[in-house]
């Protein structure tokens, strides 16, 4: 299926719960609310026509100050890049997050890679993931205050680390 076919299929299935749709250079994406996220990802994974068995990447975007963008009702987006090994096609699902008080459901039980990817989104944007077993900073150090990739974080505001963290072990190795 081409990405626009997948987009049509998702729209037919989810209707008004697709908050925004998007097509550019042959690639398509939809934006949904956090409560729809797991449902749409499971649907795309299990449907025989889409069969997205791979979660290639999870990345946040901060739209604070994005030009000509008054109708966007959320500040952050988290983009899930899907890939189907069986059918060799891609699609992107985005979830709109108004601010960091809204939690996004974690998908680490569907794809284990989401564990680290969501930790990175949390580290960089401060978006919280409900149900994540080990939501700690991953790239910045533990004494870091703020979230580095937010648009209101100055690029050269440096923060010193006094001592590396003592314990990095988790209760279970699956959570690490």
């Amino acid at each position, binding site marked *: 299926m081409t990405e626009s076919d997948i987009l049509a299929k998702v729209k037919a299935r989810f209707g008004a719960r697709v908050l925004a749709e998007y097509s550019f250079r042959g690639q398509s994406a939809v934006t949904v609310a956090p409560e729809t996220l797991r449902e749409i990802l499971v649907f795309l994974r299990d449907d025989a026509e889409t069969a997205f068995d791979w979660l290639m990447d999870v990345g946040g975007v901060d739209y604070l100050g994005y030009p000509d963008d008054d109708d966007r009702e959320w500040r952050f987006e988290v983009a899930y890049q899907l890939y189907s090994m069986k059918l060799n096609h891609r699609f992107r699902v985005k979830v709109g997050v108004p601010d960091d008080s809204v939690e996004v459901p974690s998908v680490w039980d569907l794809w284990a890679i989401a564990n680290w990817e969501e930790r990175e989104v949390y580290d960089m944007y401060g978006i919280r993931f409900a149900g994540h077993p080990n939501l700690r900073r991953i*790239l*910045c*150090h533990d004494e*870091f205050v703020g979230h*580095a990739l937010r648009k209101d*974080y*100055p*690029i*050269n*505001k*440096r*923060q*010193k*680390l*006094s*001592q*590396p963290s003592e314990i990095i072990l988790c209760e279970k190795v699956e959570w690490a």
Partner: protein
Amino acid sequence: MGLESNLSQPFLATRLDEVINWGRKYSMWPMPFGTACCAIEFMGVVSGRFDVSRFGAELVRFSPRQADLLLVMGTITQKQAPVLKQIYDQMPDPKWVVSMGACASSGGFYDNYSVVQGIDEIIPVDVYVAGCPPRPENVIGAIVKIMEKISTEKAAEWR
């Protein structure tokens, strides 16, 4: 008496500093603290073509307690900084530090929230090597510079 009686010239007249420095400068034990791209070029320095063993500094030690030359190769981030400090503190005196490459010397082109703008914010540095990454010849040049520095030092100044 003993060994000296077999030699035609039984005495070697030198200063203590000279003989110690002579010994030190041809047997440096580097501790490569490689974090990034420069570490790959350092592999070039120790491997066949450039062969740093010609200068007596090929015995790479990965324990700071056995080394006297700290080679910092690559970007040092804020997260890494306490580790580097600890490694420097663990090295026994006398010790020398080479800062290899733009990142270690000045932060390089990473002028941002996570990168230390030069390791001299944390530890003293003897020789800075320019380049991103420096060519192996440049690194060997830095080792020769350290040798020159050693040969002018006074042993009594080290604790």
